[in-house]
């Protein structure tokens, strides 16, 4: 059976991981390749690298990093952050990335999704959706959660799939950082209403949270700090999920 995926997310700035990482068994916690290799060894099913570099040198730095990751890491990985053109994606895929994730640029210009899908195939186009719970319902926010786009999360999810997205990375900004669990209602609702896989993100604090989000229909679950600080080690998490009847790769 197809298994649910556990995905650590690494934030990258100028080719280095930026969020605090605490592992005794790696030499350089800022080295994304070393950290990625450790996660692969622990049983991570995929990796996401989110590039937050904001310099003119960005493209070159990212290309070189993607190449190094692909050289040493034998599981799939997605690269996101500031991708706004077909040329950006071509370079990343040519150097060994498996998927790219687009967010604000797709809101700004939805045709980008279709251009990427027809050029490279839907399977490598992940659309990241940042959503917040408002009194009216779940809405889509852009620019790192600062701008209310006026879009409803479910409507936008359906539209990006229509446009050619092969996967949705759904981050609840209301849950992110709380460690109180994923946003089960909107994750479940979108999972049931689109034909592509949905990655749940934001709010993971313990093993039970992963079980909960898989039970409402998420295909994959992403987290960062709880993996970086070994609060929820991946091998134990996967064992727990398997014991609770979730199809998982061990």
């Amino acid at each position, binding site marked *: *059976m*197809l*298994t*649910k*995926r556990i995905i650590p997310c690494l934030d990258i700035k100028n080719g280095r991981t930026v969020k605090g990482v605490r592992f005794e068994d790696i030499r350089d916690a800022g080295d994304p390749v070393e950290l990625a290799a450790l996660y*692969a060894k622990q049983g991570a*099913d*995929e990796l996401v690298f989110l590039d937050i570099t904001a310099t003119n040198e960005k493209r070159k730095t990212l290309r070189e990093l993607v*190449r190094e990751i*692909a*050289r*040493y890491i*034998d*599981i*799939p990985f997605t690269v996101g952050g500031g991708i706004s053109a077909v040329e950006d994606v071509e370079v990343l*895929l*040519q*150097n*060994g990335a*498996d998927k790219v994730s687009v967010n604000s640029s797709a809101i700004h210009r939805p045709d980008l999704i279709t251009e990427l899908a*027809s050029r*490279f*195939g*839907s*399977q*490598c186009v992940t659309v990241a959706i940042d959503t917040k719970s408002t009194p009216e319902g779940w809405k889509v926010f852009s620019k790192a959660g600062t701008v209310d786009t006026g879009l409803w999360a479910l409507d936008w999810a359906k539209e990006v799939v229509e446009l050619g997205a*092969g*996967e949705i990375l759904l981050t609840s900004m209301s849950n992110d950082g709380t460690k109180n669990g994923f946003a089960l209602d909107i994750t479940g609702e979108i999972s049931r209403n689109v*034909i*592509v*896989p949905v990655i749940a993100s934001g709010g993971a604090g313990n093993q039970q949270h992963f079980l909960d989000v898989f039970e409402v229909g998420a*295909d*994959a679950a992403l987290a960062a700090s709880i993996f970086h600080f070994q609060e929820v080690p991946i091998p134990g998490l996967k064992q727990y999920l398997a014991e609770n009847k979730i199809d998982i*790769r061990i």
Partner: protein
Amino acid sequence: MKIVIVDYKAGNVQSVLFALERLGAQATVTSNAEEIQSADKVIFPGVGEASSAMRALKVNNLDQLLPTLTQPFLGVCLGMQLLCQHSEEGDTVMLGIIPVPVKKFDAAVKVPHMGWNNLHHLKSDLFTGINEDEYAYFVHSFYAPVTEHTIAQSSYPEPFSAALQYKNFYAVQFHTEKSGPAGAHILQNFLNL
């Protein structure tokens, strides 16, 4: 040993080159007929869409050349589907090397079929040392059904061909280059053929 990767601008060539590098092997990426014919092993990767891939193959007459090859040949992902007869993707006539059709997954499941799934009913030297139910990484929306040419199956939820073999033509639907140590092992088995 001379290994070539067929060049038709298929996208994920670099990942395959790195996977070979991790096994201590080197390969040449080429669309040159003589280079391909004289190789000991030919690898045919691919991601993307069927009809545009077939068009790209025709540019260098690779559609004529590939069926005539006699050395061990490995199609990967779209590279596997291109070896088949016909694909429902874009109603495309494929290379017709392996007499199997390519169909779209049923609307009842999520597509793409994306992630780790297990391999079962393993046959052939390609899977020497690989355990039944070993996991491999898949990402595809179309599939080849199980036929007499199937050498590995996977299920989503119905069984489909995770790998095919016809004479010297081997083909895998999953990505050997992204399937961890098991994928590397399968790639090494191919190099050992």
